[in-house]
């Protein structure tokens, strides 16, 4: 149940996937709101600190996700997936895994290079030190831009990723979306059929 199998995802992958998904969407919304200039300044300060704490949480989870992804097997692609689609999916998944790390690190760089030098007090529990980067206006502006740009790029990829999942679920009517919702999810009747197809895919890939 915890581990991935040939036919589906285990609980670890599923929990990491959705925790990171929810946090990233929340952080993008939070980031968008806190950058508004007309917002109450005290609220704005608090929103920034929440953004940082949740952002560090994503960074931690994204590291776990990347490690788990690199050591754990991937379920076989669904039957009937063309080699081009399979390659596109692999590139998308790699890009999302890497971007989750890079966007969070770029956010850390913003906090670290800002001349405001505001400590990152993780949920008011522990101070997370700044990255060893020089604090300057130019550096802060660069990382702020990079952080936002990469975040919006990731949002675009997430939209594509979600669209692909819905495409699989509603048009192709395969297990792609469902197996990210239920550990080891796979209809019994589909199993033999899929195993057959998976073997074909493996051959195809070789």
């Amino acid at each position, binding site marked *: 149940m915890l581990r991935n199998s040939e036919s589906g995802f285990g609980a670890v992958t599923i929990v990491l996937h959705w925790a990171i998904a929810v946090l990233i969407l929340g952080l993008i919304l939070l980031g968008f709101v806190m950058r508004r200039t007309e917002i*109450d*300044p*005290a609220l704005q*300060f608090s929103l920034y*600190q929440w953004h940082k704490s949740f952002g560090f949480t994503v960074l931690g989870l994204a590291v776990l996700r990347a490690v788990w992804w690199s050591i754990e097997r991937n379920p076989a692609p669904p039957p009937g997936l063309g080699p081009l689609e399979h390659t596109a999916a692999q590139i998308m998944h790699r890009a999302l895994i890497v971007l989750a790390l890079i966007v969070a690190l770029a956010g850390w760089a913003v906090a670290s290079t800002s*001349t*405001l*030098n*505001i*400590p990152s*007090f993780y949920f*008011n529990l522990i*101070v997370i*030190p700044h990255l060893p980067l020089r604090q300057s206006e130019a550096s802060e502006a660069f990382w702020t831009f990079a952080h936002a740009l990469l975040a919006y790029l990731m949002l675009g990829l997430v939209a594509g990723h979600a669209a692909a999942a819905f495409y699989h679920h509603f048009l192709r009517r395969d297990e792609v979306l469902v197996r990210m919702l239920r550990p080891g999810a796979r209809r019994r009747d589909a199993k033999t059929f899929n195993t057959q197809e998976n073997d074909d895919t493996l051959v195809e890939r070789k």
Partner: protein
Amino acid sequence: MMTPRRPVFKAIWLFALLAMATTPAAAAAAPALADAAGNYRIASSSTVQFSVPQTGGGGGIAGKFAKFSGGFRIDGSNIERSSVEFTLYPESVRSSERRIEDFLRSSAVFDTANYQTVTFRSTSVTQTGADSATVVGTLTARGKARKERFEVTLTDWNKRSIAFTIRGSIRRAPYGMDVGTPIYSNVVEFDMNIRGQKR
């Protein structure tokens, strides 16, 4: 206080003697009270600095106020009947960068659009040493008035002016300025060099 109140002039005289006998250059010898008595206007050459420590060490927020006014009266017969009133204009706050100044002026901190001044009016003065005293009074900021205490030390004087360092640790939360806690300390350290010109 159980200690009987010693005549102030005696304390000053003793201090002056002591200062001359031991470390003549170490501190400004306190003036005879009669010489120091009078009304003073707080000179613009005075400085009003503050700092707010931050968690995990580091500089925190530091700054100063460029605009302030006020005066004090030193009572010639009893220093404890002296008084001080002080007004500072938070709009004139200066810090390391514009973003911090704007934040301090904003509704999050001083709310200078609605509250133009921070005032202090003494209610009691207690001598604590030959050249030091504690001033207690009412500090009013953002429409909230609270009793606060400052420690005053004489640093310099002549016939026409007198100077003190004034230190106080003020908790900002009761004034509705708790933004940024606990990243930034609730306690603001004030460090002032106040020079009075005799009127």
